[in-house]
């Protein structure tokens, strides 16, 4: 499958919605409308936006998605309902996890998204078990820290042993809260996965790089370690640095300015309207 302009635009528009959502969530945290820890995924939009767009283009049906705690962008990219996510962040029982999931444990039955229980990396073995049981195309998104969990590594090993149709996506932002990867370990996930006899690649969150590695996914186990750039704090509304590389800005430079402005305007309007609508709903 070629990485053509239509696919690039689909990815960009999806990522723009995710970015607008996280920026608005940032503001809602500051306003005090979100009353529990929020894990914003700004800077990590391109793995889920690219992979979800590619799956649709490739006609992969029946996929099931296991989501990590920093998962707003994954939820939105894979078709989770925007209003239900807003309601969930407001703690409302009409939310996507019935007001029980907060930011970290969102899910969607309709979109085939399975929630995260809060134990780091626990969804790795669960995704593998489900994939084993029904052999459906399975995606497991995780962070670089959760992937260090012993049971997550064991799950990769068993998925390889059984040749399951599963794609592990390690969203590698190099940080566990603020502890850098080099402090925690001297190895890389793609090398570990290859040690388990699994196809694995280490790449930037550049959509072209990601798409280049996806053909053959779900015909065999595959792991992509995608290097991302978390823009905001581990939890809550704040920034750790002002000079973090921004993939969204960089990827937008391939399009003309009018299109970029139009996409951003549409995404911001959609998100703001959803927040206002649902804030009013919850105030009733």
């Amino acid at each position: 499958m070629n990485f053509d302009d239509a696919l690039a635009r689909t990815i960009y528009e999806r990522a723009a919605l995710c970015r607008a959502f996280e920026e608005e969530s940032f503001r809602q945290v500051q306003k005090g409308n979100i009353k529990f820890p929020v894990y914003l995924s700004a800077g990590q939009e391109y793995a889920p936006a690219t992979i979800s767009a590619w799956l649709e283009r490739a006609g992969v049906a029946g996929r099931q998605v296991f989501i990590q705690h920093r998962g707003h962008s994954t939820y939105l990219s894979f078709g989770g309902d925007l209003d239900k996510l807003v309601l969930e962040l407001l703690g409302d029982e009409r939310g996507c996890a019935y007001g029980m999931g907060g930011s970290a444990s969102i899910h969607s039955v309709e979109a085939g998204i399975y929630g995260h229980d809060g134990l780091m990396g626990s969804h790795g073995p669960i995704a593998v078990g489900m994939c084993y049981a029904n052999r459906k195309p399975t995606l497991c998104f995780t962070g670089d820290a959760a992937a260090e969990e012993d049971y997550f590594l064991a799950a990769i090993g068993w998925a390889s042993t059984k040749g399951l149709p599963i794609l592990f996506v390690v969203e590698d932002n190099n940080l566990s809260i603020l502890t850098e990867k080099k402090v925690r370990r001297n190895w890389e996930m793609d090398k570990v996965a290859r040690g388990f006899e699994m196809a694995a690649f280490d790449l930037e969150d550049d959509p072209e790089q990601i798409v280049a590695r996806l053909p053959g996914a779900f015909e065999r186990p595959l792991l992509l370690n995608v290097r991302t750039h978390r823009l905001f704090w581990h939890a809550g509304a704040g920034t750790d640095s002002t000079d973090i590389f921004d993939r969204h800005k960089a990827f937008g430079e391939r399009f003309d300015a009018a299109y970029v402005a139009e996409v951003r305007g549409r995404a911001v309007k959609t998100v703001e309207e959803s927040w206002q609508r649902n804030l009013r709903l919850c105030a009733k």
Partner: protein
Amino acid sequence: MAEKSPPLREVIKETVRHHLTVENGVALGQCLTAVGWVGGTLPELYEDGGMVEVSMADVAGGGFAVGMALAGRRPIYVIRYQGLNWLNAPSIVNYACKSKEIWRRPCPMFVRSIGMEGAIGPVAGSSHHSLYFRMPGVKIFSPMTPGEYRTVYREFMAEDEVYCVSEHRGSYTNTEELPDLFHEAPNFALFPVSICRFAAKQAAEELAQEGIRVAVHHVFRLKPFAPSREALASLSRARAGGCVLDDDYVDGVAKALAHDLAAATGARMRVLGLQDRSAGFAARVDNLPPNKDQIKALVRDAVGKH
């Protein structure tokens, strides 16, 4: 005359066979198809028949089982020694047991947690059902008879809950049901759990020869714990109160059940289970469940003081 039941071992084996061959279920665990087929409780089936050998990664194994449950395969997850639950239980109690409440996605699974003891050390010995007991979203049973096992499986298939089934290898040869033992005016009432039920029955029979009337109310539904009205009335009549007997440390199921019984009846309750120390392998340092002599001594003491 009722037909005699095959031993519990055979009942479990046929239950698993039915689950795999008729119900499209799956069974998984470590070293299932090796020598012994887990105490003879598994049918000789392999992966293509639904009997799945997982790697020796205990924590991940619990997660694999949860995933299979999410897929609707109603896994029977075999944990060969109950102490291994310390590694296997995290995803079961934190995901499967909570999934229905948090996400309205049921995750029904049947955890076969197998106890044994005697010369097997600090982890593999004893029952550890208290480990699950404190968590929400789980039903806990300890069937020791063929009829109880069939009941538990039938109920499991009729609903969408997580079942923790605390088995004990010492019961596998049992062919008999264990009915409650009532007295008009009992001196004492025992509420035995797991393998203690056999010792409690023996103790009550022998104490009867001494003129001490001991009611025995078997507990195989640990959670939710809902003693029958008849059992509560019996405990209320027992002048010296009662005791919960367990094959686990008493700081768990035993004390919780004793509390509920005391709260419901006002009876003075005691507990007897494993001693509060680690078990060694040698006989002199082992840590075994209450035997009939220890139970008799406790009852004599309680009745004598009253």
